[in-house]
């Protein structure tokens, strides 16, 4: 028995593969991941059998590629009017929001999984700690989910996909870097230290880095879970507010 969630998810995935979106995304993702790993990361030059140079650039890769997937989720439906079709079927708004998100997240997961040759490569070349690599893959996918939930929510705020993309990149960027001085300095001096620490703790980078070192801490997993939950709840509210425009 397949619930309505599954129905929405299936239709979304069908749309990805019915258009060039899926293929373009996967190819670009794989090429970019390889470029970052081998040129910027110095995968061979380091002569260390791990995937650190591969995962190190994932936050930056996602910063642009995930909003590109997320921007169409609702903006396109609102522009074409299909949102009216979707939300007058006996499907709840929650099912629609979650179904669309899961489809996109699974799709990004597929792209991530297709980087497996580099995992094989590193195992051929040396003896990496495969536990660390598994943790990093999980962390990378969780972080992609965080970016995606932000992008999905902002996509519901506009019918223009370009606007949705730019908004999503900016917000993702802030979340990514909230642990770095360039963000924290803006708050230092007028916010108490507790809140500044809290903001620093919101950083995707901090949590991702700790997972990708091989420490799959429940707190980091919970963090991404909460980020996704928060932005999807916001997505529902934004959709409710904006669908009439």
């Amino acid at each position: 028995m397949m619930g309505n969630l599954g129905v929405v998810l299936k239709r979304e995935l069908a749309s990805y593969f019915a258009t060039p979106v899926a293929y373009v995304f996967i190819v670009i993702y794989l090429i970019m991941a390889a470029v970052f790993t081998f040129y910027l990361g110095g995968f061979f030059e380091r002569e260390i059998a791990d995937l650190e140079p591969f995962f190190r650039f994932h936050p930056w890769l996602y910063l642009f590629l995930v909003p590109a997937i997320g921007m169409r989720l609702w903006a396109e439906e609102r522009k074409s009017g299909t949102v009216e079709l979707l939300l007058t079927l006996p499907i709840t708004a929650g099912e629609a929001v979650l179904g669309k998100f899961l489809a996109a997240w699974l799709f990004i997961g597929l792209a991530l999984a297709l980087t497996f040759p580099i995992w094989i490569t590193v195992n051929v070349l040396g003896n990496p700690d495969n536990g660390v690599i598994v943790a990093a893959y999980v962390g990378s996918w969780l972080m992609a989910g965080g970016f995606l939930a932000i992008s999905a929510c902002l996509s519901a705020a506009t019918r223009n996909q370009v606007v949705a993309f730019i908004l999503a990149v900016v917000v993702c960027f802030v979340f990514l870097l909230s642990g770095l001085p360039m963000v924290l300095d803006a708050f230092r001096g007028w916010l108490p230290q507790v809140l500044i620490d809290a903001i620093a703790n919101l950083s995707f980078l901090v949590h991702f880095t700790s997972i990708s070192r091989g420490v799959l801490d429940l707190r980091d997993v919970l963090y991404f879970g909460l980020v996704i939950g928060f932005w999807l709840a916001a997505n529902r509210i934004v959709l409710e507010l904006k669908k009439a425009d």
Partner: protein
Amino acid sequence: MIRAKSLTRRYGPLLAVDRLSFSVEPGTVLGFLGPNGAGKSTTMKMLTGFLEPSSGTAEIFGHDIRTQALAARRQLGYLPEGAPLYGELSVERFLAFVAEARGFRGGEVKSRVHAAVDRLSLAEVLGQTIETLSKGFKRRVGIAQAILHDPPALVLDEPTDGLDPNQKHEVRRLISEMAQDKIMIISTHILEEVDALCTRAMIIARGRLLADDTPEGLLRRSRYHNAVTLVLDDLQTAASRLSELDEATEVEIRRGRLTVFPSGRGNLFEAVTRTVRDAGWSVSQIQLESGRLDEVFRKVTGAEEAA
């Protein structure tokens, strides 16, 4: 049965639908008539559960749209304005999605899709991507998704808008065919459609219900109802002679045609034909008017002086 109770919707300061109340029985084709921006679409969006009413509510076969939204939606098929569809999917894939969302599973998805495809003659385009279809076919796909679950009520927002005359005729034929024992609510700003399709018409303007009647009832409100129009050579003589009839109130000459309006006393048509025969005029055309909807529409919506 569908019952709207003081249905109201605001967009910020704008009152789009103002305390609309009505009820519709099965077997009715109800036409929502009104100028653009009158609140027709907003009313439909509330009935189908896309928009929450600001106040008031409606019942769809006993299910309240606010408290039993999903149950209410199951009773309805809906064609939104402009018939939006997932253009990147094939007709078959799209209809299968709607069938699944309507709760059908397995073999039933297939049988439902095929029944709708047969009904709307979509077999030849079943595998085609929706965005490559002609407008007429797209509209038929839109109607197919609305009737997949054989709902007791259909809400069609401007079903013939943007179609060529042949396609319009085709869609109207489909609607008439489906109309028996269903509730059909159709919005339009094409007046001929009301006459061609509807058993009941509601004129809405600025969110308010201004008239609720059968098309014949609306025509009776026209000053042209039972008027007689003639085409003949000597318009002036005929006009002065006919205006003296007890059965006539006034006459009007417009574009070579003479129209005599009834006073309500006696049978005007008989009186006119008798006069024509007695006077021996050579009349090339004589016509009993049933009334003009466009005139009623302007009168009711208060735009008469602009015409």
